């Protein structure tokens, strides 16, 4: 556990180093992205800008300052917005997490069930169907799916809202968790809650679809492996009925891969939000990341990378804990 | 296997001298687990030493330590008077190459993706290089053919992949591989227990014959007392990491000193005793 924590810290440290390194290697000056054209030709304005963000210091000193701040939870100031990055992230991360969480739940629920059915009905039509679904699923570009989905359900049919997290007309609920679907409930605002859910449906479903194929394949092959074990053979030798063998024995064997694929999905979906948030104007980490990257806001990129890595490591850690809870052989001390 | 005199003391210098060898493993969260608790052993040219003992008593750990795969945590092992150093990441020192090992699993001891010839040539090349000899293709072919004949295999099998051979054939190839290094000592860890009944006997006989012909030393490890009894000159009985008894095979078989040896003998099924 301690070791794990240690390596995670090393990883995070490395991420800050790499991000910073990117900033150094890149032959660009942040002020061009963040100052007006007129100000750029004014050395004083440029100097003021560089001084404000510590860009005039030697790079190692900038880095040490950054690390010093990091230990106090200070991720620096965005060159782009002048806002503390921690504030920005606290605002955007919940939006993305809400989206990704729902998408993960959706894709894992559907993908795992289909995967189990496919494995059980191996080489019969449900399996073939699942194979087609999963192959197409892994072959669909998320952004294209999002475009098509948005065109169809929002523009053509008008069934679902196409941008943002809430109707512009409804007042956002006071921020507690940052999850619209929860905060609106906490505020007791049913209209806003309905709106929040309606806004979630399209992006979450599209994200889920883009991930479904992977989950399905993975589950199928894990359950098949489970079915191929001697333990399953032994269970059948005992005369247990097929369905019970499947659920109790084969799926049980597959539990740890299923947990892992859930964690993987989370990571995958986190990345896919870059596209989906862009199209649905979601206002989360994905959009923020894209903007920061194109504006060369190195401090923000570092902050985003750190936060995403933390989420990623945390999710994997939870996954491992869960897996070990399921599997007596790998229980952690 | 009839022409050995169980009483003849080997007059030569020992090839292998083991003094108070200790092998231990690091176990996660539990410190070290000592698998071999300090054993002494000598192996002379032309001699087969059998080591028997139940599963998990430390036989393989000792065998691997003998050739340097496992590091010793205490005591010493000498080969031809010089210490056996652990197998390094780099190339193994040339002087240790004549100290060879044959593994239990005939499936695992051959690379499934290479033809038999390629694998034999590989070993021959490295061993010749270790001996500092000039390497010519003719010599190599001659040596390989010779060795294959020695282990009783049709040289035509050379071009096959391992999966196209039976278990017994594979184990013979594994032995041939060891022989190509022109060994002085072969440590064989359960060389026959994975084989089916008919191959077991053949490979056992083969090992005995090799020792007699080439005057090499051999350590054979087995959990089966009867197997060892039929080919070994001396037998050591191992239990929980120590030798409880060690002596000429006939003595151990006919006049066991340790209760554990007796227990093992008691479990030898009757059929073994029925002379056919």
């Amino acid at each position, binding site marked *: 556990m301690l070791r794990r924590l240690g390596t995670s810290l090393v990883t995070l440290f490395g*991420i800050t180093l790499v991000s910073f390194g990117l900033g150094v290697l890149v032959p660009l000056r942040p002020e061009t992205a963040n100052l007006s054209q007129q100000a750029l030709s004014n050395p004083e304005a440029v100097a003021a800008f560089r001084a404000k963000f510590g860009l005039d210091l030697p790079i190692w000193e900038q880095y040490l300052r950054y690390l010093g701040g990091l230990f106090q939870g200070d991720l620096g100031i965005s060159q782009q917005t002048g806002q503390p990055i921690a504030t920005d992230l606290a605002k955007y991360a919940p939006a993305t997490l809400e989206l990704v969480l729902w998408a993960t739940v959706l894709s894992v629920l559907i993908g795992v069930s289909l995967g189990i059915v496919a494995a059980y009905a191996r080489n019969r039509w449900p399996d073939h169907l699942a194979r087609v679904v999963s192959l197409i699923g892994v*072959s669909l570009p998320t952004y294209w799916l999002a475009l098509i989905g948005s065109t169809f359900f929002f523009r053509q049919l008008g069934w679902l809202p196409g941008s943002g997290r809430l109707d512009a007309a409804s007042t956002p609920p006071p921020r507690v968790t940052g999850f619209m679907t929860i905060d609106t409930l906490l505020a007791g605002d049913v209209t806003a809650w309905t709106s929040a859910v309606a806004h979630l449906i399209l992006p979450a479903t599209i994200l889920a679809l883009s991930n479904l194929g992977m989950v399905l394949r993975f589950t199928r092959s894990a359950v098949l492996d489970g079915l191929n074990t001697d333990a399953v053979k032994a269970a059948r030798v005992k005369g247990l009925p097929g369905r019970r063998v499947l659920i109790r024995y084969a799926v049980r064997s597959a539990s740890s891969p299923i947990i892992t694929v859930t964690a993987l999905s989370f990571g995958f979906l986190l*990345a896919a939000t870059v596209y989906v948030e862009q199209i649905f104007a979601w206002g989360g980490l994905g959009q923020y990341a894209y903007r920061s990257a194109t504006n060369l806001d190195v401090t923000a990129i570092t902050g985003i990378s750190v936060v995403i890595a933390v989420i990623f490591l945390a999710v994997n850690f939870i996954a491992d804990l869960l897996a070990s809870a399921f599997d007596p052989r790998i229980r952690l001390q | 296997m009839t022409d050995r005199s169980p009483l003849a003391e080997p007059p030569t210098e020992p090839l292998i001298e083991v003094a108070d060898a200790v092998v231990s493993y690091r176990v996660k969260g539990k410190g070290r687990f000592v698998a071999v608790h300090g054993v002494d052993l000598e192996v002379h040219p032309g001699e087969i030493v059998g080591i028997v003992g139940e599963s998990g008593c430390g036989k393989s750990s000792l065998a691997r330590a003998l050739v340097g*795969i496992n590091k010793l945590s205490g005591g010493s092992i000498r080969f031809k008077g010089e210490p056996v150093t652990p197998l390094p990441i780099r190339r193994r020192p040339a002087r240790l190459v004549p100290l060879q090992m044959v593994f239990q699993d005939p499936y695992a001891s051959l690379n499934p993706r290479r033809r038999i010839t390629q694998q034999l040539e590989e070993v021959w090349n490295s061993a010749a290089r270790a001996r500092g000899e000039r390497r010519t293709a003719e010599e190599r072919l001659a040596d390989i053919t010779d060795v294959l004949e020695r282990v009783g295999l049709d040289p035509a099998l050379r071009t096959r992949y391992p999966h196209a051979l039976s278990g017994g054939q594979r184990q013979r190839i594994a032995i041939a591989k060891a022989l190509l290094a022109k060994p002085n000592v072969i440590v064989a860890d359960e060389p026959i227990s994975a084989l089916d009944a008919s191959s077991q006997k053949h490979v056992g006989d083969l090992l005995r014959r090799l020792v007699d012909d080439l005057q090499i030393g051999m350590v054979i490890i087995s959990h089966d007392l009867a197997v060892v009894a039929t080919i070994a000159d001396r037998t050591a009985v191992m239990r929980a990491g120590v030798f409880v008894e060690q002596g000429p095979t006939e003595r151990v078989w006919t006049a066991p000193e340790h209760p554990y040896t007796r227990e093992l003998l008691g479990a030898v099924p009757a059929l073994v005793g029925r002379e056919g």
Partner: protein
Amino acid sequence: MTRTDVISMIAAPERSRRRVPAWLRTPSVIAAGAVLLAWLAVILIPALTPFDPLATVGPALAPPDATALLGTDALGRDNFSRTLAAARTSIPNGLMIVAAAALIGTAIGLIAGFFGGWIDEILMRVADLVFAFPGIILAMAIAAALGPSVQNAVIAAAISWWPAYARAVRSIVLALRESEFVLSNRLSGVGPLRSIIVDLLPAVSGSVLVLAMLDIGSAILFLAGLSFLGLGAVPPTPEWGSMISGAVQYFDQWWLAVAPGLAIVTVVLAFNIIGDAIRDNIEPRLNENGSGS
């Protein structure tokens, strides 16, 4: 369960009863075949495109008709020709990403697994790092910094993809390093390099190949994704991702978004099907070899 297991799970053996002649089932033959076919398609494309994909051939934004099968774009270029021609960007570069990632990853995995110790520790920490570093962000940053171009996108993708291979290879090597055939060779004085090349590399090549074939589709998607964000292919080069992103503003001209989208799906699907088939056919064979039949 670690990610390594996951990767080996993805590449887990899946028995197939289809009978394919043995020589056809060697990894290298299948891979070479698939890649060759892809190249062939790419080479043949210019012959198949009815128009120069870069030339204005008709009125802008014309709907599909007999000449312009999939309509024209805002510059009056033939959408069908462009969609076809885009394969020449996507496929070779997708292959390139995978090849680079697989090469780097395999080399690092072999070294880390074989030598172990601090070398392993350092290499794997780096792999962890890259793994945890959001790939798309890395790619965006690289592309934004070095300027968008297909080459930079390929570099960015390869940089963030190799750890998958390194881990898979390392885990196989870790298991094989202690295996008896490796040990017995090393006892005979076979050196470490030789051991890696002769015993370990062939053992991992099958898995690497399976992973790689399954990855080509994702690589093409990734590349198109970067282009979609304006960080990949540079106009006027036809590229599916940038064609889709260009089409965002022209949704009444549905053909502009639909054609490249379907093209991606088709090609990626094809590679995925090939990858699947290879996995089905290679893995059992490796298995037989590994355990005897």
